[in-house]
């Protein structure tokens, strides 16, 4: 059948007798039968089992605490107050207390969480101008059409930062206190910067640069988003590396969450001083909340989450997978 000969003239149109053209390339054809496949299955099962055990152990070693404060205790008053938009400018503070029974070892992360807040609606997501955030002057004065209707105020002044995402920023703030004893109240130090992705802070978000002008001068001629109390250049007047568009809270908020129930990093426990060098000791704690974010308008709930970190997760971007996830599935289903 095989005619492997050089090509003489009269057989000019004879096809090449190469393995490729004759479809005779050496091939591996696996047979999917129980016989051949079982060993592979066992190996796979073993791998999954080991992974599962490992994960289970890590998950058990993490600690997490959630604290809903939407209408908790004194906050109920603030909750009612925020229902009325006209009272938005009025400050409202409330305090929640809680008990940590078992000490949090290692790094402790402080999150705020929202339930039923859809940061992932298409129109909402589109309503932002990355060009403005990256510090382009043209976008600062002429925000993208996507920001509409939050691109200009009634007077025609451009909004900075524009769009619905920035406008609806979570603006509660927290003061965390450790009640070591009835009289000894130690404020828990939280690191409030370094909570964003490095790339966000340094590349994707930048303040517009204009020679020797100060930040206030740069943002002159713009207005703050309608829901905001203060302009963007006054977010953190003390720290120029945390002011304007490069404010950590703003950056964290601008990374839209994938699901309507989400949490966002608020701060990381600073372990420089006692008694927090090993984490959070067990005991009574309280959080004083500057209650600004209206939750009743979307029937949402607000919470504070404290977790330690597992071995996986990229601090501070990701966190432990928690109790759900792949763990129950790691054992092969046969």
């Amino acid at each position, binding site marked *: 059948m095989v005619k492997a000969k050089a090509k003489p003239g009269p057989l000019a149109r004879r096809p090449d007798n190469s393995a490729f053209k004759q479809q005779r390339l050496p091939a591996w054809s696996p047979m*999917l039968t129980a016989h051949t496949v079982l060993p592979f299955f066992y190996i796979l099962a073993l791998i999954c089992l080991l992974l599962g055990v490992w994960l289970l152990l890590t998950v058990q070693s993490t600690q997490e605490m959630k604290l809903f404060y939407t209408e908790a205790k004194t906050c109920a008053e603030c909750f009612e107050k925020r229902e009325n938009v006209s009272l938005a400018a009025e400050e409202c503070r409330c305090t929640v207390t809680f008990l940590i029974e078992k000490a949090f070892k290692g790094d402790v992360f402080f*999150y705020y969480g929202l339930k039923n807040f859809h940061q992932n*609606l298409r129109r909402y997501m589109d309503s932002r101008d990355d060009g403005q955030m990256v510090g382009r002057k043209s976008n600062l004065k002429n925000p993208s059409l996507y920001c509409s209707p939050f691109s200009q105020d009634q007077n025609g002044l451009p909004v900075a930062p524009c769009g619905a995402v920035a406008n609806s920023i979570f603006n509660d703030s927290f003061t965390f206190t450790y009640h070591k004893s009835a009289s000894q109240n130690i404020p828990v130090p939280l690191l409030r910067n370094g909570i964003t992705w490095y790339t966000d802070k340094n590349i994707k978000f930048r303040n517009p640069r204009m020679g020797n002008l100060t930040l206030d001068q740069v943002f002159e001629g713009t207005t703050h988003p309608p829901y905001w109390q203060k302009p963007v250049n006054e977010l953190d007047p003390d720290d120029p590396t945390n002011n304007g568009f490069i404010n950590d809270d703003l950056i964290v908020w601008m990374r*839209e969450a994938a699901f309507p129930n989400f949490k966002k990093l608020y701060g990381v426990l600073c372990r420089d001083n006692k008694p927090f060098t090993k984490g959070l000791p067990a005991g009574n704690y309280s959080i004083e909340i500057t209650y600004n974010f209206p939750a009743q308008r*979307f029937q949402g709930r607000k919470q504070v989450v404290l977790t330690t970190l597992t071995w996986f997760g990229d601090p501070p971007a990701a966190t432990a997978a928690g109790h759900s996830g792949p763990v129950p599935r790691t054992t092969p289903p046969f």
Partner: protein
Amino acid sequence: MKWRNPVDLVRDALRGQRARDKDLRNLVSNLPYEGLEKSKQPNRHFPGNAIKTTKYTLLLFIPVNLFEQFHRMANLYFVGLAILNFVPVVNAFQPEVALIPICAILSLTALKDAWEDFRRYQSDRKLNNTPCLIYSRKEVGFIERCWKDVRVGDFVKVVCNEIVPADLLLLYTADPDGVCLIETANLDGESNLKQRRVVPGLCISDPRFEPESFNGIVVCEKPNNNLNHFKCYVERPDEEKVGAGLESLLLRGCTVRNTDHAVGFVVYAGHETKSMLNNGGPRYKRSRLERRLNVDVIFCVILLFAMCIVAAVGHCLWLQAVPGVPPYLVPDSAGRLDSPALSGFYMFFTMIILLQVLIPISLYVSIELVKIGQIFFITNDIDLYDEGTDSGMQCKALNITEDLGQVQYIFSDKTGTLTENKMVFRRCSIMGVEYPHKENAIRLNVLEEAESEEEIIFNQPPRTGWSMDFENSEPEGRHHHHHHHGSRRKSKVSGQGQKDVAFSSPLETDVIPDRKLLQQISRSQEKDPYLDFFLALAICNTVVVSMATARRRRASWFSPSGRTNNPLETVSTLVKKVGSLFTSGQKPIHQHLTVSKSDMVIEEDDLSSEGIREKTEDLDGLETCSLHAASPSHKESAASDNLRYEAESPDEAALVYAAKAYGFTLLARTPDSVTVRLPSGKDLVFELVDTLAFDSNRKRMSVLVRHPITREYVLYTKGADYAIMELLGTPYAEHFSGSEKNIASDTQHHLDCYAKEGLRTLCITKKVVSDKEYMSWSLQRQRALAAIEQREELVMETAVQLETNLSLLGATGVEDRLQENVPDTIIALREAGIQVWVLTGDKPETAVNIGYACRLLEEEDLVINMSCKNKAVCTSILDCTLEEVRRYDENPQNVDTTPNISLVIDGRTLVMALSPDLENRFVDLTKRCRSVLCCRVTPLQKSKVVKVVREKLKVMTLAVGDGANDVNMIQAADIGIGISGQEGMQAVMASDFAISRFKHLKKLLLVHGHWCYTRLANMIIYFFYKNVAYVNLLFWYQFFCGFSGTAMIDYWLMIFFNLFFTSVPPIMYGIMDKDVSAEILLGLPELYRTGQGTGEYNFFTFWISILDAFYQSLVCFFIPYLVYVDSDVGLFTFGTPLNTVSLFTILLHLSIEIKSWTVVHWIIQVGSVALYFIVTLAYSAICITCNPPSNPYWILQSQMADPMFYLICIITTVVALLPRYMFHVIKNSIAPSPLIQAKLLDRLDPSARERCIREWRSFRGGVHLEDSRSSTPPSPALEIPVEMYTKSTGAAELMEDEFVLNVITDNYLRHNGPGT
């Protein structure tokens, strides 16, 4: 240019339109008007010879191309989506981004079109600028111009080996007989020389032809595309009309051969020439798989709409449930929110844009690519290559490869398809005496053995010397080399040289005379039936005689490149011609040179030999001319051995060679005379009065000659026996002696015997026409020839008038041998579950015998013969048989004992059986028959049969044939296969696939058909799965984003995902996957059955894969969801692992489906994954703000730094693919399909495999198969079935029959052309 009144211009244009549309055109010479402005030219309304096959012009390319492209539904779909995206309320992505797919597709297609058009433009330009000679009055001679300058009404001169630039009415040739020989290989592939003659009585061949003296009006019909038909007459100034037909027309694209030069009058130019009108585009057929696919695409559309409605309603309900005005609902610029219902309505369209990939537009592009790849492999298969003709497989229809894997019915022609179409003279019967030619039979057996044992043909001494051509000594000379090399292939190569002329293999040309007959001839006198018989064999044909040395250069297909050498060649030809007058004696030297050079080529075996061959052939071409120049004087002296016969049908050649073997050598044929050399050495020159050409209604041809000695008008007729027997001059009349009466019945008896042996029969008759009879007939004939209305009918009528009262001389039996491996192939095809029908124009007896020889019929078969004369009988026979056959079928006990039923039916009965009321019953009967043999069917009946079976049974049909008579059938079937054999190229041109031997059908169907089908079917299923699985990820996400149409994957990455990351693997899968090896497929033909009917791609498999896609997408979405729920994950951070996971799932899913992994598979699979990571990483590193709001900057990088990402990838992929994997494993372990079992055989070593195949066959095919394998092919003299035959259709019945049979001897039908 002078200003002209616009009204005049319009009037002139209208007049031109009318002139072009008129049924008859009046053309006059351009010469008197030479140099005048255009408006004065008489032929200005007719197009010039410049051709333009380009579709576009430079300026209008973009608009015209866009217009063309928007004719496609798919493009409209894309444009619709893009436009939808520009509507702000419904857009899903940024409008500009949504333009990417449509722009990519449009610009790619436009580029391809532009390139193709440019190629066409180049070739047009080359053709238009090829030089030719046009007569100019000013120069008083032919001057060199370009093809594009030729106009209707010009006089064009063509020289030897030049291609004719336009359709020319031949007015003058250099030949004293007014003959010009042409080769039409460029047009229809027929390589034999055809004779064209000047229009008689117009220009008396002066030593010099003067176009200026031509002052007639040429009246011709409107241009049409029939290559075999042309009507025209020339009205001379004295108002006499001279008729002319195709025999005086030189078609554009033909090559002038063996004629020094010729001058013609241009009747059609440019696009109106017949060759251009015949230049149809490629055929477009839609395969069954594609039709099924379109149904599933509609399912996809329904699915898409369902999902969009779910999303729309969901969005509406979600909005209603939202309390108050939450900060995440963005109002419009006026600060208002749309009502939930309206938003839901908008959402419907948004979702269509978002989920658009569900409709697999890219599938169509992929299918086309896959088919190109499949065709590449089919055409490159070395097993489908025939060395004898140096031709492989050709695919003409590019989009029905997978149909080859689903064939259920094969309709085959017999002559030239099952048989070689190499006619070998076997026996003859003269005056009722049979001459068996035993010696000749022995010689043929020797030849056959030599071939079957793969020995060198030329080692045998088949030649006995007396019919040795000059040319034949060449292979003999070469033979030494082959002997040394001992290679069969090489000997075949050398045989190639002879193949230049059709029907001239030694098998056909050499006939050993019967000793008894030789003695009989030597005793015969001048007026003797024996003499007449052989004279008739030699004369009664249209064979053209050429010199053996005049080997022709094969022109390649109308290629301009072949043409460009021409001017040079022409010049050298002229030089050579002059030289040859002096050097004719040197001829042998050239010959020698040729021989030695070709020998060198063979010895060296090298690739550059082509160039050398070209040169030697050029030499030959020159010789053609030199010989010809010397022709009048040399003709006489030319040795009869130097003759070559160029016949249009192999039968004719066989008979002429037979006559030559007995010493009756046809020496020359001119339009007016035929020269025959008698055994005595005397040359007889017959004045050729008329030739009554063959036509399919008369089924015979005649020549009317004037005997040089007796001066009588003699009519020799030869034709199909049943056509001739009706016309015998009252054989029972008194004036014939008793013996005469017996001749007819004896001959009929011999004819029946011949037919039983499977020989093709012809009857030879003679008639002496009295002068008076001739005179009256010739007047009618003249009138008929000059007629332009109904010319054919009139001409045929005159022929019928003359062909009466013939007296029978004898009959001939010509054998047409079976092609190699035909029985094998037919058995394999039948085992593959394919019903094989043979449709032939031959007699039932001949057909039945061929049927047995090729194993279409088996000894133990029950052969039902249907042959009836009227419909009532036919109906009752049909009913009875059907009843009986049903009884066999219904009785389950009979399963093993029931013989296979075969049906033999003749053309006449077939007509009745196919009438609307009997059609269903007939089809029902044939469905139960294993094989069906239709005899004496016309081309139209052939196609009718195919159509009826195809439409009634809804089966996939394949028709295979080689001649013009099969064209109808080939076009009627789902798949038409042409065999590029000896009979021209018409079947091949009409076909979808062209093969060179019947045996190739086996591998083509069983291997390539099966592969193509399974590959494509699985690829399509996979494609549907892929789209659904991917798009559903987006759909599931809608449940978490308030059905707002958010995509969590960057839009660019989505496009890339379909465009780059997952597109190549399925295409490679569709081209290269191999479920079972070719050896197994050939060894176990029944594996082919898996593809028949609905095959692997059906309702079930489609929905299974859709369900699987749903499952996998659920897994791919929800495992990452559960991982990230309640976390601080960002939207696109969540989308990235999702995208990665679905890439792994989709690619690994394919890996499960891939049956055999070659290097290519590995490279493409691994490459796709690598490409994904490289492109995505690069994109994530570069793109900071380029695609808001997705903004993928550094997302994949940060994900890849997270171990969780890898964990998700592994676990999700495993969980997603487990069911499919388990399904395959369990199915293969518990109930493996035949294909899987066969695949197991593939892993065995060859000998074990062989044994297993045998066991399998005996296990599955039962005892019967084994039996039929071991038994030798039955001898032709079979008792039972054939007897059934003779009982029903005796000779007497045939002769009595008044029914006009529409039966034609196969090979003659080519005259009918494809138009019938």
